[in-house]
Every structure is written in C-alpha cells, then in structure tokens.
C-alpha cells in the first residue's frame, strides 16, 4: 500500500487517468453540444458502441487506424441523424428515442459482427501507440503523464476549450444555447429550430462516435458484444454532474477517471479492501454526486421538451 506514493505508481495512476478520460471526454463534449441544444440524447451508449464497431470493421479491413477514426465519426453522424430525425423532426419523446437507439445499436453491431467473422478466426488489428512529444516527454514526472499519450488524447483535451469557444464565443454557440433555453426566440426570428437541432445532434454524435472509436483503437485489438460496457451512461452522468458547462463536465470526467485509475492501482497493490468495492468506487461517487446535485441551475430550460410551434 505504501507503494501507492512511489513516483512510478503516481505517474502510472495519472497517465492512466488521462487514458480513461479520453473516450469519455470526446463523448461528453459531443453530448454537451447536443443537450445544450435542448435534445436529451439517451443514445450515447449506442452511438459509442456503433462508433467502436465501425472503427473495428474499418481497422481490420483496411489496416489504417486513421481511416478507422473517420469511420467512427461517420457512424456517429449516422446515429446522430437517426436521433435528430426522431427528436427534432418527428418530435418523438427524447428518452424513448435514445433508449430505442441503444437497443438497435446493441443488436445491430452484434449481428453485423457475427456475419463479419462467421466461419473464421476473428480478425484483429494493432491499435494506436503512445506518441512521445519531443523534449516535453523527457520532463521528469510531468513528461510521461502529459506528453507520452496516444495522439487522440491530446485532441480530446483540446476539445474542451474548443467546445467552450463554440458555445460561448461564437454566433453558432449563442444560437445553440438559445435552442435549449428558448427555441421560440429563434423561431420568431425566422431561424429554423429543426435544422439547428439536427446539426447540433449530428455534430455531437460525431464526437460521441469518435469516443467509441478511441475506446476501440486505443485500448483493444478486437470487438465483442456490448463493448462499451456502460461508458455512455457515465457520459450522461458527467453532463449532469458538470452542470452542463464544459469546465464542470471536464472536472466530472477527470474525477471519474481518477477514481477508476486509483481503484485499479489499489487493487493491484493488494489493498486490504474488497476489490468489488474499489471497482464500484467511481459509480458510487457518481450516484453520490447526483444525489448532492438536486438543484440543477445549469440545466437548459427546454432540455428534453420537443419544440412545437403553438
């Protein structure tokens, strides 16, 4: 246990935290854009799963990891288009649409996967390696944590200020926030609510798909059923815990990832605590956080309410 405070272990815990954060950051920033536009998308898990599967398919067929990344993004866009069509155009209940999409994604990816590998050994691929940033990765302590990560991890960290800028410093961001707070204001100005929500959901889902794609290309070498293992739900929790603000969501994701990395290392170091308890630590913290956040001042006023002109 005392080993926990050894430098090598602390470096490992923090580097692990960044790796765990990466897929969650992509997906949560995407989901933030979607929810700020008023659509309560429950289909994060299914979108991540489809992104992961598309990445697997293209990585094994083409051998190119970057083509696989593009495939994950396109899969996210496709899933986003379905969600957007159901919620923004058909005005179906957001929860039902999202949950339906998760079921569809679970069944569809498994069916396609089984058809793809039938009668042969499962094809595998070699995923992304860590990229050492010259000079910076040699800095003691900080170097191996921050500057020796997979390329997409840097992109995920950049996504946070980028989404903040989009939401708070651009005209699109202003319109987007308005969609979630008072869509009628846009409508009376002759600006299409449906088109803007459609764009927000497809853009956000592209990022969610990328999160699933990273989970595949950064951690695995093959696909299996229900590959995302509930991470989409963590994203939904992070949005609420982060009070629908980029900084808050970033902190929520980082806290979750740090707890998971800590739990991992504590178990490996033989902590005298049941490992099941350690494993559930991030989830217990999430539930505790939600219970503590009964007031949700940041929640968009029209979140989850289909917009209709009266």
């Amino acid at each position, binding site marked *: 246990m005392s*080993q926990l405070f050894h430098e*090598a*272990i602390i*470096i*490992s*815990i923090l580097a*692990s935290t960044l*790796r*765990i954060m990466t*897929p969650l950051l992509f997906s949560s920033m995407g989901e933030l854009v979607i929810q700020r536009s008023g659509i309560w998308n429950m289909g994060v898990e299914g979108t991540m799963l489809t992104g992961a599967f598309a990445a697997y398919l293209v990585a094994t067929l083409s051998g190119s990891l970057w083509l696989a990344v593009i495939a994950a993004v396109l899969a996210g866009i496709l899933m986003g288009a379905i969600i957007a069509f159901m919620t923004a155009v058909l005005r179906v209940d957001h929860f039902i649409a999202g949950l339906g999409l998760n079921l569809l994604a679970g069944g569809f990816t*498994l069916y396609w*996967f*089984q058809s793809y*590998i039938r009668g042969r*050994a*499962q094809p*595998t691929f*070699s*995923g992304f*390696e*860590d990229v050492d940033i010259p000079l910076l990765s040699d800095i003691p302590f900080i170097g191996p944590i921050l500057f020796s990560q997979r390329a997409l991890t840097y992109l995920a960290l950049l996504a946070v200020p980028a989404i903040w800028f989009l939401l708070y410093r651009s005209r699109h961001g202003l319109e987007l926030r308005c969609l979630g707070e008072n869509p009628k204001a846009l409508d009376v100005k002759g600006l299409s609510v449906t088109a803007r929500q459609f764009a927000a959901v497809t853009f956000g889902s592209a990022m969610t798909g990328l999160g699933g794609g990273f*989970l595949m290309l950064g*951690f*695995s*070498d*093959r696909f*299996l*059923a229900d*590959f995302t*293992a509930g*991470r989409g739900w963590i994203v939904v929790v992070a949005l609420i815990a982060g009070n629908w603000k980029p900084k808050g969501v970033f902190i929520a994701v980082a806290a979750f990832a740090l707890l*998971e*990395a800590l739990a*991992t*290392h504590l*178990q*490996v*170091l*033989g902590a005298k605590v049941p*490992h*099941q308890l350690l*494993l559930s630590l991030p989830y217990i913290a999430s539930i505790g956080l939600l219970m503590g956040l009964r007031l949700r001042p940041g929640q968009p006023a029209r979140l989850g309410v289909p917009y209709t002109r009266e």
Partner: protein
Amino acid sequence: MFTRFAKRLVAMVALVVAVVISSPDRPLAADPDKLNIAIILSAGIDNAWDGTLIEALERIKAAKPHGLEITWKYTDPLWGDDAGDAMRLFAESGEYDIIWAHSTYSDQVKKLKDEFPEILFVVVGSGNEGFGGNQYWVYKRVHEPAYLLGHIAGKLSKSNKLGAVGTFPADDVNDEINAFFAGAKAANPKIERTVAFIESWYDPAKAGEYTSAQIATGADLIFQLTGNFKPCEEAKILCFGNFQDQHSFSPSTVLSSAVAQWDPDVLWVIDAWWAHKSEGKPYAGNTEKHWFSMKDGGATIAPYRDLEARLPADVRAEVEDLKAKILAGTFEVPIDVSDPKAD
C-alpha cells in the same frame, strides 16, 4: 397338405419373432446414426470459452464417434430467462438430442429436465448445481498448464514480480491463477504476486489499465486472462494467454497459453447419450464436478512458436520434464480455489 404347411410356417415364424422380442440382448431400437446438439452460448464464439467448444465439436464431427453424423446449432449469448426460453424452444421442437448450455444454466435446466427426460442436458463450469439424471455437469480446469506457465514465468522473471489479470474470482478462474503462482514460486521462491480482477468477461479498457498498473508496480511477466495484450506489447514484456492458444493475438508477446480442450468432455456426453439410446441405459448425470485433466486431454499448454528462442534450453527442458510427470500421473498440481491475493 399345403394348408398344414402354411400353418406350420406361420407358427415357426411367430416363434422366432417371439424369441427375438423376448431376448434381453436385443437393441431397443435401431442404433441412431445422427446426433443433433443445441448449444446455448454465454459469450459468443469469438470468446475463448465458447470458441474452444465449437473447435472441439468440429474435431469430433470429423472423428464420427459411434459412426454418428453430428450437427449442431448455437445461439447468440443468452442468459437467465432468455436462455431458459431458448432451451424450451429447442426441447419442444423435438429436433435436438442434447442441449448443451455452455455456462451457469442449471437453474434453467431444472425447470426442463423432467419434462423432457429423453433429452440430455449439459451445464458447464462453476456456479451450477449437479442434479444428476439427464443433466450432466461438465467442468473445466486448466490449472495444470497454468502451473507450467508459472514455472516458465518464475524462471524468466528478473524483477521477481509476476502479475495475473483475471475476469471474475470464480472457482475455475482462481484455480488457474493460484496454480500459475504455485508453479512460479516452486521455480523461484522469491516471486511476488500481484493480482487483479476486472469483474467483467471482456472490457479491454479496464483489462488494459489493470495490466499497465501491474507493469508499473514492477511485474515483468503477466498471466493475462482478459485477452488484452496491448500493455505487454507497449512495455515489451512477455505475457501468457488463457483458455486458447492466443499467440496470434500478439505474436511478439504471447509466449504460450493454458489451453482448454473440450474434446473428452464432449465425447463423455456423447457416450452417455449413445448408451441411453442404443443400449437403453438410463442417464446418470453427475452431481459433483467432473473434469478431464491434462493426462486425459482436457487441457494442454500451447506451443511457444516463434518465441521459443526467448526460452532458455534448460527451462524448456524443465517444463517438458514437469509436463511428462503430469501426463504420467507422477506429479499432481494442487487445486487451490481460494481467492488469489497480491503479496
């Protein structure tokens, strides 16, 4: 004259028929020439647990035991009531002779076994209950090859620290991990253990993080039961695979694997079904765990393939010697199913 002859002939034929019918050695019916198996999978054929069963069935199909033409149909992963419903559909269709439920399904079999007494039900692995009768309980232990892998790891480790990343701490997972460390400690008493369970059958992100954490604590060889060899590749260390020969997943790191072979288990079940169908022997399923050891072909150690050069000749010879002793029955690998812990 002709009528009398005809009457005698009929009487003789009747007598012969009566003798044949009353003969105790007469087969009850014509010997079956086809065997149709329904398989309930728990994780999918791409998973080592289920995939190795299908591989064994392919081999047995080619070998044609009792001259049987063997066919099968398997489901997608099913659990709980869904698995029970699938079993009922298979049973009611009347097309299947054996329903092989390849994991913890004795709760579902309990509801069906008496209703379909002619069908032989199979449940597999830990967490099941042995009812006997027409339920056979197949168990799989690969602790013997795991012990051999441990011996290799103990000899090769420079840090004297080894890691094992497991799925769930179950009886038939613990036995492997404990045997691995027992083998390692027998080969090198200085060995320290680090153990982790990810509490999932497959979650590559978690598996990867646990493996990386073990490497960070100094482990320089890993017994990987969760199928993610990427951290071993990144750290350029050797790993060991589990349940199937996993060398192809990571040719630069997987030195060998503890391999499960279901062939003797499947043949054991087929023989029981055959004896019932052709000789009228009642089903007599086991109520206690029943497994085939390495000696009986139930498990083996995978070849080293192109990593053989990484293994010093003397270690290779020691492993061969141990393996020979296990196969000859002169050395028994102890079964320890307690929860493995880090030192």
